[in-house]
């Protein structure tokens, strides 16, 4: 907080002569209005992540709090050499990649339906918002019961009547299914907003020029919608990577279906190992950072926030 106050003050000093009274007032009001939000965000995220890094460098087991001691990077060594981490990591990556890819395709189809439909637009959009709004845990329980033999109608449809949630690959696919069901509408809405930015005339011109509907889609719509597509992909990728609720309810991470978030949670709250748990937390943070960095590096100006600065 104190450092924030001194920086503006310095800038203010050399700007005083150049800025009119109104501009200075505007500036001060700007800082004043942002300050509470900034303070909250820094206090609740920046400080704890620093603290997580500090915890991750210690041997800190809540069952033996007195034996806490500085161990350097050995927690990271322990996590990175553990098959549990790598299994969780690949499972997370697989779920993320597959579900986001399918969501993009389905979301596009859904966006086109919502954009083009001549009637029933209201009911369709209302229905679509339900998966978005519904509590993830609720949806996950619905899926879980549906796939549980004896209780569920979906399990009953399976030929052998086996329990798909108790085997690794079937369970992972069902987790992906639950994730897709929940997130596709959000993807579709973001893409719909992008579709609205595609001018009708451009599409009609392409049609007059003899472009097929596929060509209009691939060479007119998609390029024009690139920013919207990238934003949707970035948000959904990062969101999918931190998947927790669906897995917790569907399998609790059993049978090697846990994501990295599940692994971190288990280490923290089942084994009560704050040191290892924090190391996992920091590693997940780094992964998310790398994904975001890759997106922004690859797509540069199309990343959200960059247009913001120009205003």
């Amino acid at each position, binding site marked *: 907080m104190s450092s924030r106050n001194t920086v503006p003050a310095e800038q203010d000093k050399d700007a005083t002569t150049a800025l009119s009274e109104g501009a200075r007032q505007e500036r001060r009001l700007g800082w004043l209005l942002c300050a509470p939000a900034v303070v909250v965000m820094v206090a609740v995220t920046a400080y704890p992540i620093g603290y*997580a890094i500090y915890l991750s460098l210690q041997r800190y087991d809540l069952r033996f709090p007195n034996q806490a001691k500085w161990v350097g990077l050995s927690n990271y060594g322990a996590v990175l050499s553990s098959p549990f981490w790598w299994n969780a990591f690949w499972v997370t990556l697989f779920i993320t990649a597959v579900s986001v890819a399918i969501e993009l395709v389905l979301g596009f189809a859904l966006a086109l339906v919502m954009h083009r439909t001549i009637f029933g637009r209201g009911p369709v959009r209302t229905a679509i918002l339900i998966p978005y709004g519904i509590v993830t845990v609720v949806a996950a329980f619905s899926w879980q019961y549906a796939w549980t033999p004896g209780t569920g109608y979906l399990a009953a449809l399976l030929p052998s009547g086996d329990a798909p949630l108790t085997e690794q690959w079937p369970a992972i696919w069902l987790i992906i299914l639950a994730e897709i069901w929940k997130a596709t509408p959000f993807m579709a809405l973001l893409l719909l907003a992008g579709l609205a930015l595609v001018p009708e005339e451009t599409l009609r011109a392409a049609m007059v020029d003899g472009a097929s509907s596929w060509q209009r889609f691939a060479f007119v719509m998609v390029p024009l919608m690139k920013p919207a597509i990238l934003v949707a992909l970035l948000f959904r990728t990062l969101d999918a990577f931190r998947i927790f609720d669906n897995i917790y309810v569907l399998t609790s991470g059993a049978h090697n279906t846990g994501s990295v978030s599940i692994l*971190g949670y288990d280490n923290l709250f089942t084994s009560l190992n704050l040191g290892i748990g924090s190391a996992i937390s920091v590693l997940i943070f780094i992964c998310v950072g790398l994904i975001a960095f890759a997106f922004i590096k690859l797509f540069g100006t199309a990343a*959200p926030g960059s247009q913001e600065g120009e205003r």
Partner: protein
Amino acid sequence: MASAGAKHVTGWLTINIVVVAYALFPVWWIVALSFKDPSTLTDGNFYPTKWTWQNYRGIFDTSEFTRALINSIGIALIATAVAVVLGTMAAYAVARLRFPGKRLLIGMSLLIAMFPPISLVSPLFNIERFLGIFDTWPGLIIPYMTFSLPLAIYTLSAFFREIPWDLEKAAKVDGATPAQAFRLVIAPLAAPGVFTTAILVFIFCWNDFLFAISLTSTTRARTVPAAIAFFTGSSQFQQPTGSIAAAAVVITIPIIVFVLLFQRRIVAGLTSGAVKG
């Protein structure tokens, strides 16, 4: 011609029905489950053959659920109120004022929007125990409002850009300070956007599970999503399926109400922030 038109209509009708069925079918299944009589609970039927309110009566009889419901409502409402107030202030500044550090603010909120919550769970767990707010309302309100602030700032600044700002200029010409212009002219115009944002933030807080199971340990602050994950049957020989289904339906009701009443607003809010922001 008429038959081609009819074909067109049927085609769209089919597509629309498919979409609606897609969206509703897990919801219907949990509703069906919640109305099933215990004896038919495991029959795997898509419709309840014996309807009963028993599951609902059961959960409202226990303080475990009612307490969680009160926690959920209270925590989500307070977190929403705080996030929307702070978000409105920041978004106004972002949309309207020129000041150094704006980019930093936007970058920071973007960063937090991408933040993996699990990374914060371990430090917050320790910090909150130290501060004595572990397993209390503030212990959940604080992370909720923080994580919904980026959503609030993005959505609100997108809405604020649509406001006819000449009115503000007119007010300033008439001698209002920027602060007065904000309070007397812009705030009333901004109300619909603020309301929409509040709905989105509320849904976000209502939805959270990870913080709710990590930062609570008793019914004192445990919200419904966390509570139903810990439900046990009323006797040890009974599966909690019916109770979980009923509780799940109860916390879905507000979402359905919001969606039915404010569909247009929610769509506008979700899309404006993401694309224009």
